[in-house]
């Protein structure tokens, strides 16, 4: 997928003007956060669970090599195979090779952010293999050729009317005058279409919410059960996952599951939580004949030990998106690539380069809500600041903002000079603004006054008035 992260501001303006999107975002803003709060209110030990989840993820990152090797060994013992991919291109080639070796024509897929990150669908299509997304949201955006706009609700930007339009366009096999008004009708139609794909697929590809080192198990959660059909009906199951998804034990996986669903959707647990370990064994009634796990690095190991280390704790629940005032204003597509919201603003620059994603860490008020709701307590604002620091020190921020900042800092570091400079400025603005108490327009303040008035200053600074304060009284 072509990144439009460089056009963040243009994307954002477009999003702000899109009334359907704004309605969808309003629904999201009032939906997930409230459900999350209610779920947490029902679980008194939630804060302690967050600490436990953080500690598990920290332990994983401290001992990543150990857990990954153990996972690989266990997968091998159960008859599966682990493949290592340094970057997206390697991952794509590995997946394609497995598909080609299996003689695959159709590949069903359950939702995977790694699939989006490596753009696997485009690669399979270019090589004559048809990928079919089986998560309803992913299926919708696949037929619309859009990237996901949310970690767990990829089509959250759309209304049901827009989905109905896309279905009518894509599904020519059904009567043109059928009613798709009700969500149930949309769901039934998607199920009818997807059922054929499930049955004809040669390979099923899933992501992974976790990889369990002690057993070689892959954990996948869904609310639709589509991943279960994806991984158990075809001959070959390919798991694509980034390597930090590993966790030490099944107990650890259980702890993380307890914070994951609550943080994501406010559910106590997702409808389907599936643990799959290796291919079908002799005597098993179903399951794939072959089991492959493609583990992607794509720059993540460079984050280990860096200021961005803790970002690797992320379990992709989406809570930081749901609560972020910026995400809620512009939606996921404005971020211009696969990941959005606060976690995307930290992660995307690692994956595609800060020079391509310079706006992302800056488009934040650093309000701290993301860190507040993160189930594994990632200090997201600190990481956004870290990117800004790298940009500033690498001379990547805009010249105008750098010089403005430097000029201001020059004065702020010299209190006497600062007093001389600000006194007259405040006096002039105070005089000009006295009659109305505010400005509708002011030179150099267009950013501010585009959507709000600028309250006028009083005309004298506090420190100037304080100096004249007689004998300790104002």
């Amino acid at each position, binding site marked *: 997928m072509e990144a439009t992260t460089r056009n963040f501001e243009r994307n954002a303006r477009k999003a702000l003007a899109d009334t359907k999107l704004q309605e969808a975002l309003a629904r999201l803003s009032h939906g997930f956060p409230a459900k999350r709060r209610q779920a947490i209110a029902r679980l008194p030990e939630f804060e302690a669970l967050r600490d436990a989840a953080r500690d598990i993820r920290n332990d994983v990152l401290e001992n990543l090599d150990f857990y990954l090797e153990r996972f690989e060994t266990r997968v091998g013992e159960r008859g599966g195979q682990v493949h290592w991919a340094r970057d997206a291109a390697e991952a794509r080639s590995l997946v394609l090779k497995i598909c080609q070796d299996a003689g695959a024509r159709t590949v069903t897929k359950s939702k995977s952010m790694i699939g989006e990150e490596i753009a696997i669908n485009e690669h399979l299509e270019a090589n004559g293999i048809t990928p079919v997304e089986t998560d309803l949201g992913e299926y919708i955006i696949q037929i619309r050729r859009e990237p996901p706009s949310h970690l767990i609700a990829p089509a959250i930007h759309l209304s049901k009317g827009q989905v109905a339009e896309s279905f009518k366009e894509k599904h020519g096999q059904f009567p043109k005058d059928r009613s798709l008004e009700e969500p149930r009708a949309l769901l039934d139609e998607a199920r009818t279409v997807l059922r054929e794909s499930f049955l004809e697929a040669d390979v099923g590809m899933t992501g992974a919410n976790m990889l369990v080192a002690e057993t070689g198990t892959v954990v996948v959660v869904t609310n639709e059960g589509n991943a279960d059909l994806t991984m158990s009906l075809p001959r070959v199951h390919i798991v694509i996952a980034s390597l930090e998804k590993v966790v030490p034990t099944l107990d650890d996986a259980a702890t993380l599951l307890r914070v994951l669903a609550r943080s994501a959707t406010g559910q106590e647990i997702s409808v389907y939580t599936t643990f799959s370990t290796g291919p079908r064994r002799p005597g098993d009634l179903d399951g794939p004949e072959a089991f492959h796990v493609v583990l992607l690095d794509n720059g993540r190991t460079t984050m280990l030990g860096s200021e961005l280390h803790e970002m690797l704790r992320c379990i992709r629940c989406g809570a930081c998106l749901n609560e972020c005032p910026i995400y809620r204003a512009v939606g996921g597509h404005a971020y211009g690539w696969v990941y959005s919201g606060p976690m995307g603003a930290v992660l995307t620059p690692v994956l595609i380069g800060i020079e391509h994603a310079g706006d992302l860490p800056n488009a934040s008020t650093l309000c701290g809500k993301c860190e507040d709701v993160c189930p594994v307590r990632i200090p997201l604002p600190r990481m956004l600041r870290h990117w*800004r620091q790298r940009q500033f020190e690498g001379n990547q921020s805009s010249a105008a903002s750098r010089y403005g900042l430097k000029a201001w800092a020059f004065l702020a*570091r010299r209190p006497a000079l600062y007093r001389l400079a600000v006194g007259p400025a405040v006096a002039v603005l105070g005089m000009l603004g006295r009659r109305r108490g505010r400005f509708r327009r002011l030179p150099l303040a267009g950013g501010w006054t585009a959507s709000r008035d600028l309250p006028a200053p009083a005309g004298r600074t506090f420190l100037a008035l304080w100096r004249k304060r007689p004998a300790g009284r104002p």
Partner: protein
Amino acid sequence: MSSPPPNVGLFVTCLVDLMRPVVGFAAVKLLEDAGCVVSVPAAQTCCGQPAYNAGDQTDARAIARQVIAAFEGFDYVVVPSGSCAGMIRVHFPGLFAGDAPMAGRARALGERTFELTQFLRDVLQVPDVEAEYIGTATYHDGCAGLREMGVKEQPRALLAAVRGLELKEGGEAEICCGFGGLFCVKYPDISGRIVDGKVDDVLATGADTLLGGDLGCLLNVAGRLKRRGSDVRVRHVAEVLAGMTDGPPIGDP
């Protein structure tokens, strides 16, 4: 009081200094009424947050040094802003990683730094204030005050003692107003959308007054309220608590 009165250094903040001095005087009055000896060091400009949040650590560090030197002689540093207080308390120490003596001084200052209403309630345990304000107010929780400093109940407890004032909570009091320092001028469209949501929430309460503890947020929300033609009055909480509301509200003549 048998123990000597607390010696407080007022960090007035650049926005109060430049835009709205009455907030500074209100803070002084509240602190003096509570028995503090208040000083205002002349060597203060800003807490350095604009540089810090723009990634300019060098200037942020230099300004932090200046603040630490100017204020470390006081028993307490009190700030009529949760955001600037959070900068000093939470962020200054990290600026001196690798410089143990400075980091120690920064931490020592941070531990004695408080947002105004937090200081009045949590440290001085002021039970109430002597003030009157006729009106219905809603309160906006500034993000850093709320999440970095833990300011939530303190201003509300003090406002409860103000005669004639009724407090009506907005459903989104804890949601960011979209100010974000330089964010609001760097991304004016997004900031404008966010502050519009805040204004909706303020208007939905039916309150005639918006109060808050951070002038940055208040200038932003007042600016949008005025642009939308609202006559909701906007004031810093210190003005109301100190009974210094004779002058015009923020953005009014």
